[in-house]
């Protein structure tokens, strides 16, 4: 059984909460006591429906009071075929950063569209975020089909509008599903109301969709999180570099380069799961041992000498500003990429990206909450990276304000 992480986005009232609720409810992923609580709540908020499916996902009290989703809520369910992690993200412009957060770990985006309204500014914004974050697959779910008489024509109209826009922003793989979350048409079960639709219902689609990135970047990348040095008598010389393999694979005997120092050595042993192994691959937690005793510490990158990443003190990036306080040139920043951290400064803001058209706008030097911009960042120490399009773990970073310690921006290296 494998794991699919997806996020959901849409305008307020497009029916996102209802859709997720329906998915969980009809796939029998909700236990009876939760349903009991919901029935009680649905009554106390005066909903006429027997059970308000949206209440399943809106967790925080403030959200219940205001009736909106303000933060990412994670939901879990599984079927015979897959385990799913849903990041339910808020739709408002003012919560773009929360959407970024939820989307950053997703392999699939579900973008909800109200069949009556078609594509809106919000739809465009959510799609652009998916494009910037390189989400492997986007599913546009055209909801509330019951309110447009389940019209195939209306569905096709929205599909062709969206395809046009997707091309504009460079989204490659997009699929479309018509549904009515409220009535349960085409969510878990196919529906006779939508007999013209020949594809899979949403759940079957999610169970089978292939989200593997096809570009096949396979260079071996590893970053040291922690150095294991027991310093006991029995293990006097033991020195292991602990971390997860970020991409590709490593074998004992491989010639490796340590960055940024550029020193070289050979892998003498690999441990994984308390055992010695001959090789290890992407995502596996390991402890690497090197033939030579070098000065290596947390945040150093280890790669095969045959395929080096870029190592530089400046990076060109697209960032999303996430702090309430706008960017201040005088503030001291740190850049963190996986476990690597160094002092950083935004030296130039080339342009801002219009979040609704994806056009570059002239920069006025400002960066406000939820804005996207193309920038150049100067670093105190050299970073080893691959462009984000090829490799997420070595191409993504956050910026931290040294004064407040807040995460103020998320960035992808271009």
């Amino acid at each position, binding site marked *: 059984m494998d794991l699919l992480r997806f996020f959901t986005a849409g305008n307020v009232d497009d029916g996102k909460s209802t859709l997720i609720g329906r998915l969980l409810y009809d796939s029998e992923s909700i236990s009876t006591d939760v349903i009991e609580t919901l029935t009680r709540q649905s009554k106390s908020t005066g909903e006429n429906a027997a059970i308000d499916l949206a209440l399943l996902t809106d967790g925080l009290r403030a959200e219940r009071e205001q009736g909106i989703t303000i933060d990412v809520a994670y939901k879990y369910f599984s079927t015979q075929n897959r385990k799913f992690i849903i990041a339910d993200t808020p739709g408002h412009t003012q919560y773009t950063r929360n959407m970024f957060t939820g989307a950053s770990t997703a392999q699939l985006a579900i973008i909800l569209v109200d069949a009556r309204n078609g594509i809106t500014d919000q739809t465009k914004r959510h799609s652009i975020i998916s494009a910037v974050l390189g989400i492997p697959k986007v599913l546009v779910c055209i909801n509330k089909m019951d309110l447009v008489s389940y019209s195939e024509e209306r569905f096709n109209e929205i599909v062709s509008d969206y395809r046009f826009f997707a091309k504009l922003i460079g989204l490659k793989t997009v699929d479309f599903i018509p549904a009515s979350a409220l009535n349960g048409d085409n969510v878990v079960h196919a529906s006779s109301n939508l007999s013209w639709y020949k594809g899979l219902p949403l759940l079957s689609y999610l169970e089978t969709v292939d989200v593997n990135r096809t570009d096949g970047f396979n260079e071996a990348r590893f970053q040291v999180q922690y150095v294991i040095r027991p310093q006991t008598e029995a293990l006097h010389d033991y020195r292991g570099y602990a971390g997860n393999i970020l991409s590709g694979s490593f074998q004992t005997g491989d010639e490796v380069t340590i960055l940024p120092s550029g020193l070289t050595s050979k892998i003498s042993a690999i441990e994984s799961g308390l055992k010695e192994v001959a090789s290890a691959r992407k995502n596996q937690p390991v402890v690497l041992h090197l033939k030579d005793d070098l000065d290596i510490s947390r945040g150093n990158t280890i790669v095969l000498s045959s395929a080096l990443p870029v190592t530089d003190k400046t990076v060109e990036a697209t960032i999303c500003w996430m702090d309430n306080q706008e960017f201040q040139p005088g503030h001291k920043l740190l850049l963190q990429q996986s476990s690597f951290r160094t002092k950083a400064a935004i030296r130039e803001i080339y342009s801002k990206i219009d979040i609704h058209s994806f056009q570059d706008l002239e920069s006025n030097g400002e960066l406000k909450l939820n804005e996207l911009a193309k920038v150049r960042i100067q670093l105190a120490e050299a970073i080893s990276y691959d462009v984000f399009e090829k490799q997420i773990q070595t191409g993504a970073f956050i910026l*931290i304000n040294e004064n407040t310690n807040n995460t103020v921006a998320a960035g992808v290296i271009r």
Partner: protein
Amino acid sequence: MSDYLDELEAEAIYILREVAGQFDRPALLFSGGKDSICLVHLALKAFRPGKFPFPLVHIDTGHNFQEALDFRDRLVAETGEHLIVRKVEDTIAKNRLQDARGKFPSRNALQTNTLLETIEEFEFDACIGGARRDEEKARAKERVFSVRDEFGQWDPKLQRPELWSIYNGKIHKGENVRVFPISNWTELDVWNYIQRENIQLPEIYFTHERECVLTENGQLMANNAFLNLDESDVSVTRKVRYRTVGDMTCTAAVESEAFTVEDIIAEIRNAKISERGATRMDDRISEAAMEDRKKGGYF
């Protein structure tokens, strides 16, 4: 990656190593329950042959199941790791606090006091815990690295964005971070992992005969010295097991025939009641009970 358990395990180990790399004085909060036992197992995978870069900390309510205490001591002896125990009783005595009252006197609220005092005493800057997002709605929103202020408070509206697998553990002095490595696991995932890794657990997770009293909501509570029962309470002997192991005064048992981990997995697959709903009296009080407790410094 082939199996989803490998992926969840890799994520958890990564998070544990980030704690080791980012903090000066971390701690692993060890409750004796299956989730924290899994954390210890994951820590072995993350740090052996080295020692854990943190002590295990047990906030002892005094209302423990003896089986859980025995298990804790065995685990500590086997791993050779450092255990710190701080007792709620001492907090009560020292600060002249009012102990919990009622028929089922829960020390849940008081436990938060002891936890905060312990954090202050040892100047812990990170506390690793076994909470999972599937347990409860407020938890579903919490970050993996959850920053708490000097009073241990969680502000759900001011959470740091947390992107990819990049964890920002930078804090000011006095603040601390609660870290949840198994955030993305469900109850079933934990049991599947326990089965796969052959992790040992306290006996009370498996079916056994126990003298219980039936509460007003129909929950089964182990009859024990910490309860203030009266004539109206009838004792019954049932075959039960525990789905969570907490305070004896507020953790209910479920009737079960499950002898083995396989039995339990089969039982959970069929179960219609969620874990907290089945066994925790404390969350029933109000819809926002957990959210309020977390804001106040609870785990």
